[in-house]
């Protein structure tokens, strides 16, 4: 690892670890918790859109399923540690099955079709979560308040729990995209028919990417419950989850991995500020408008997102310095 990058990593780790001590466990810390959860979620999404080149409009199906599975099991087990573990295990099992089913239904055909199917499946979950017949399980539109295990009762404990989760997810994804598998996924994004002509089983690789992406999104959903101690149908919402994650990834930079984290940070922070402003100026109740404007601005002026633009500058500089050297010899 280059010294600059190592220094950045150390600094940000120290900053995040020390944050609650310096700023207390109030608003800033709980905003960070949300950013960690959605950052992991957005990074999982980048695995699809940025590294494999497939677009899903229903990533909330995983996030929501993770949240509901953990919430339901926790509430049925009275908030025990075993319940928490079991909830995550069940969530992961459902997530794997779900991604396999959706993949078999739609990943073999055109990508536009896949995007539509994910949109529809996501909506099905939204309706199911709010439906009356399932009330004994989901509490329908009223949502579920959950008790978390005792060791997670302090704000500080939750904060570090989520931070560790984020660190593990980041490490996992970092290793994965730099593995031989990650390279094949990038090849698919670049030129699918060429990868096929080399002998790669395209469908298997896409399914794997979708499965892993879904699994991490599911875990992020479960973590959301740990943070909020509450779940409602909003975790399946298209606008505030499925499309939000697209926006986070685009703002941060598609295909940059950490961009998702940056995007999540900016959008959640903005959302928070707007909500505060809305207290005194009701105009700011319509945060979606601000996000619409943000989206247009980013696509127009920073098509590679924030991190993508920064990386691109560096990349271009390196490339020109190399060609310069070559032309000299």
């Amino acid at each position: 690892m280059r010294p600059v990058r190592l220094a950045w990593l150390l600094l940000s780790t120290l900053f995040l670890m020390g944050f609650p001590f310096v700023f207390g466990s109030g608003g800033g810390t709980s905003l960070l918790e949300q950013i960690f959860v959605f950052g992991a979620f957005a990074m999982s999404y980048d695995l699809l859109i940025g590294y494999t080149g497939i677009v899903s409009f229903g990533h909330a199906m995983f996030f929501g399923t993770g949240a509901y599975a953990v919430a339901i099991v926790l509430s049925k087990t009275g908030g025990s540690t075993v319940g928490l573990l079991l909830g995550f295990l069940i969530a992961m099992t459902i997530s794997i099955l779900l991604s396999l089913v959706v993949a078999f239904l739609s990943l073999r055909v055109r990508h536009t079709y896949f995007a539509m199917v994910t949109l529809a499946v996501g909506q099905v979950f939204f309706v199911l979560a709010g439906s009356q017949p399932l009330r004994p399980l989901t509490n329908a539109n009223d949502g579920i308040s959950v008790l978390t295990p005792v060791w997670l009762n302090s704000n500080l404990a939750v904060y570090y729990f989520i931070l560790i989760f984020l660190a593990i997810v980041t490490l996992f994804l970092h290793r994965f995209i730099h593995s031989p598998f990650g390279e094949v996924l990038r090849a698919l994004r670049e030129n699918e028919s060429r990868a096929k002509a080399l002998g790669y089983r395209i469908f298997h690789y896409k399914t794997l990417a979708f499965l892993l992406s879904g699994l991490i999104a599911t875990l992020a959903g479960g973590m959301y419950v740990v943070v909020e101690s509450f779940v409602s149908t909003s975790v399946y919402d298209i606008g505030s989850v499925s499309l939000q994650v697209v926006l986070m990834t685009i703002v941060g930079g598609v295909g940059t991995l950490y961009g998702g984290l940056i995007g999540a940070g900016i959008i959640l922070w903005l959302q928070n500020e707007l909500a505060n402003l809305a207290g005194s100026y009701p105009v700011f109740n319509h945060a979606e408008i601000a996000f619409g404007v943000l989206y247009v601005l980013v696509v127009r002026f920073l098509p590679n997102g924030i991190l993508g633009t920064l990386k691109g500058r560096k990349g271009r500089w390196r490339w020109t310095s190399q060609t310069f050297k070559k032309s000299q010899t």
Partner: protein
Amino acid sequence: MTILEAIEISIGYRGHQVIENASLKLDQGQFVSLIGPNGAGKTTLLNALGGQLRIQTGDIQFEGKSIANWSADRRARAGIGRSFQAVHLFPNLTTEQNIQLAVQAKRRLRLHHLLGKVDQEVTAATRQILNEIGLLHVARVAAKALSHGDKRKLELAMLLSLQPRVLLLDEPTAGMSMTETPMMLKLIAQLKATGHYAILLVEHKIDMVMQLSDRIVVLHQGHILAQGTPSEVMNDQEVTNAYLGGHYEGIT
């Protein structure tokens, strides 16, 4: 011994018939050229053999087995390698990554690769190929930033990394400059000399075709007009009339 065979195949795009009842045979170690005017259907025929296109009637056999229903990736794994008329690379990946992907394709990825690194043998093989083909100095350059000649070389290097038994080459010198072309000709001649490959070459450069081919197949408006040794084909009255117009220097 025949390794790849097209038996009376027909192909069309949405009703309009491009190849009709074409049969073609490629023997082990043989060098066959497919020639014909623009739009004759040469690329289409190669796409059918490589699995990029489905045939409507007839059959395609590889080592005596029907492979008409095999996908392109399965055919590649079985040993049918395909190069493309238009440059067809992973543009934003480096030269090295492009070749590495081709080297990796033959081997199965296993669970430990999920979070691991590329195998040492793969990187070593990649380096060796880069060196042999003369692309080591641009190993870290994105494929899209290479010169056209280097892109063509890279394409061929990727194809050879698959260790195929059949090479389907679609105008490997297309778009190459006067200085780059001889290098590609030499490479192809070397490939032939190894005797490892059955080669089907689509090419407009008649001199090259005459020199290298064991057999020549002439395609004209989707039909096979003639096939035989270079001298047989050149003396064929039908070919002379329909395609060569009496003097073959005219076509390049």
